[in-house]
């Protein structure tokens, strides 16, 4: 079996997803036997463009990002988006509700000339190129990444969950946070993380986006039922799910919190 050549790239992100790959220490020897890494700025000196699989982290935030990801798309046979920023726009998209001029004033005091140019919206990779597979999460899950590599190396399709985080909470025996009045998005959020946040008492923030058939009206009802305003659900969703096309899926059902 020849080893597929793979590359890692990043745009607007904390590069934490690539760190997840590097921190899979026990699996790295096997990973390097299974694939050949030809480009990975965070880890290796090599810079080659003859890759077949590109793993791309981050959201597109500058005009140059769009050109660069289109170049990656041309060279790669398979493009995999890594993490919340690449798949959803992620936390970078929180800024999308405000104008670039307004943001520039706030961040640079108006003296932004010559810093860099900015896209009006921080955007997921899919806004500019065809994405073959998505590995979601903030950050991605190591095991899910390794399983995806195995599937791609074997020529099969990586499968990731289509269902809610509630499934994983229930299976690991975590008592429902909503029932305790904690604003948890698990009922609409996509699973795959093993419901790790609720297991430690932290409500789900839907960092993997929403599952295949989210019912935001019902989420609003569940919040209300457990003594929380529907607007709290909207406010929580803005953290990772604020990119225009994602936001449109929940905005109608859940009233926006004021001032955003």
């Amino acid at each position, binding site marked *: 079996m020849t080893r597929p050549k793979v590359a890692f790239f990043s745009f607007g992100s904390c590069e934490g997803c690539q760190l997840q790959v590097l921190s899979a220490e026990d699996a790295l020897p096997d990973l390097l036997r299974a694939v050949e890494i030809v480009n990975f700025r965070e880890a290796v000196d090599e810079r080659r463009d003859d890759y077949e699989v590109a793993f791309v982290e981050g959201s597109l935030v500058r005009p140059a990002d769009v050109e660069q990801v289109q170049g990656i798309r041309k060279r790669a046979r398979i493009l995999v988006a890594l993490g919340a920023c690449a798949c959803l726009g992620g936390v970078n998209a929180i800024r999308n509700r405000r104008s670039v001029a307004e943001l520039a004033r706030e961040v640079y005091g108006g003296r932004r000339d010559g810093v860099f140019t900015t896209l009006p919206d921080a955007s997921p990779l899919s806004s500019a190129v065809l994405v073959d597979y998505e590995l979601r999460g903030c950050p991605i899950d190591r095991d899910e990444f390794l399983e995806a590599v*195995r599937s791609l190396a*074997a020529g099969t399709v990586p499968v990731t969950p289509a*269902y809610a985080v*509630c*499934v994983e909470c229930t299976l690991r025996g975590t008592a429902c946070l909503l029932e305790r009045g904690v604003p948890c998005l*698990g009922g609409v959020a996509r699973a795959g993380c093993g419901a790790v946040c609720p297991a430690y008492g932290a409500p789900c923030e839907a960092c993997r986006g929403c599952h295949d058939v989210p019912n935001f009206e*019902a989420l609003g009802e569940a919040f209300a039922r457990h003594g929380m305003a529907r607007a709290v659900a909207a406010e929580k969703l803005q953290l990772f799910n604020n990119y225009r096309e994602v936001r449109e899926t929940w905005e109608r059902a859940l009233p926006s919190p004021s001032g955003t």
Partner: protein
Amino acid sequence: MRRQKAMDQEVYRFPRSRLGALIERLARDYRVVGPVRRGAEHAWADVGPGAELALDYPTTMLPPRQFFAPPRELLFRFRRGADGRYTCHEPEAERPVALLGVHGCDLTGLRVLRSFHESSCRDRVVTGRLDRAFILGLACWAPCTAEAFCRDMASLESEAPAALYAWDLGDVLLVKVLTARGREVLQDVTALEAATSDEQVALRHRLRVRHEAFPSHLRFPPDRLAVALEAAADDLLWEATADRCLSCGRCNLVCPTCTCFDVGDEGTLDGAAAVRFRRWTGCQVPGFSKVAGGRDFRPTRAQQLRYRVVRKGKYMPERYGMVGCTGCGRCIAHCPTHISIREIFRQVGGGGGAGAAA
């Protein structure tokens, strides 16, 4: 069906202080599991030092079927040899399970589980685990939750498939022998003393009080559900109820009679070895009814919700001989929007017809 009063059969005194001895005795042959306190909840877990058996538990979130058809189960391992051929290995043999303190709803659930695995797919792995298990049933004195409706579903007084069945009277439990194995184990840890007449009076009294403690929510017997649900096939209630459904799947996972599973492989990076496993899924879990080519044979939330209810009340009794709802109330209690199968049963069975009269 044979029904006898408790006193007609072998009923013995079991001093509470002997529970430890019972656990010790069972641990020789079984993995001993019972309700254990976990924070504010109770869960089925191995009992022993540090995990005390909590027989006064109301109920658990996950039902006992987890020990017979586990949430994630290794089916076999396979490996590619140097010659390119694959070899398969079965999982290691596991210890049989002793379950202590199983309530009527969950005893019924285990019978439903068997009825499905015996008739539908002849799953000898699951029925084998049920065959080898040792079960101590435990009577309830009051509804465990506001959602429970076990009396309506005729599971409150279930005793099979228990080997021993207990009524907890405080310092002493009265224990009925239901199988030869049960008698054998009981004999090893107690002197098989008959209940005193005071204890028998106390039990009769508790049983009378209990009957009043469990309110009746449905005005018809569970065997009428099939007809009622058939008549309600096009009812608007499915749409209206599904509007509140998150499709989170909790109702499936906490159900003592859900049996659906998904099968998958997980392998090493070099593709030389893998495991095949199965894991729980359910008809309310997104993706469940998607098939090859991306088609979905039950695409709407209303169809999915209706399917769950109709399977429990009609398809299961018709195909496997037992109603698939035990009235445990878990799916209601754990639904984030409190969708109630009891309320649906009441609506489809209550409006006119023979059901409303009784």
